[in-house]
């Protein structure tokens, strides 16, 4: 948000408050033990990935970018952004 979208810190905090409220709603109720167990088995997340995607896209658009703007900036940016991804493993169950 700071580096690629050039948002200021106030706007970043506002965006965080908004997106965390939208995204961190549990998908399965606590008593739905079977549903939660099947999530764990299939490596599905506990929270709504679609809501996270929509939330990020909303922030991107609000910052004046296209919804599908690339992470790589068109010109050599003044502020370089590096996004480390969690260590990944090949996974076949979901594909």
């Amino acid at each position, binding site marked *: 948000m700071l580096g690629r979208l050039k948002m200021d810190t106030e706007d970043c905090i506002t965006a965080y408050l908004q997106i965390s409220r939208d995204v961190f709603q549990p998908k399965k109720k606590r008593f739905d033990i079977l549903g939660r167990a099947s999530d764990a088995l299939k490596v599905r997340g506990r929270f709504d990935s679609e809501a996270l995607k929509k939330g990020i896209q909303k922030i991107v658009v609000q910052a004046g970018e296209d919804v599908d703007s690339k992470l790589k900036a068109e010109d050599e940016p003044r502020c370089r952004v590096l996004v480390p991804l969690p*260590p990944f493993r090949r996974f076949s169950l979901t594909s």
Partner: protein
Amino acid sequence: MHTTLLRSYESQKVQEDDCTIWEAGRATSAASSFFDPIKIGQFQKSFVDGGTGCNNPVERVYEEALDIWGPDARQRIQCMVSIGTGQSMERAFGTGVKEIASTIISIATETEQTAIRFATLVAPILGPSPSNNKVYYRFNVVKGLEEVGLEKYKDKARIAAATKVYLNHPDVLSNISACAQAMGSQCT
């Protein structure tokens, strides 16, 4: 198992395929059991959280600086700021699931160990010699966030309060003003 880096800039390194901003945000949030795995880019490479690993990317950032600036990087770095998300989140999930809990402990431990290793081994050799100005600054709320997990958005007042207490500690205050000075000096 290795860390993948997505960049907003050109690099000499072989790059991951072009991904969108939202894909990058979505992929980096694929934290343990929180969100579904994601496939990104032209080749639909799959990203599933693999547990512990690079949760403090400070060494990766230093490597990038070495790639970009070459052997001069060490002297050219005038200020490096590392911000943590609160120490020891042992009970962050509160699920009682043993494996998840132990994953979180090792993530928190790995994050702080990386911070300490960097401060000890790399930070002292950074910056233009012969100046003795401090270059590396690490900020991390040390108390009050232990039980606030990533998903606890309702705890925002508690997060803000613990952060303010940390920021008002005399050592932290003087670190902040030294850091601000280091940042300001390179803008002139």
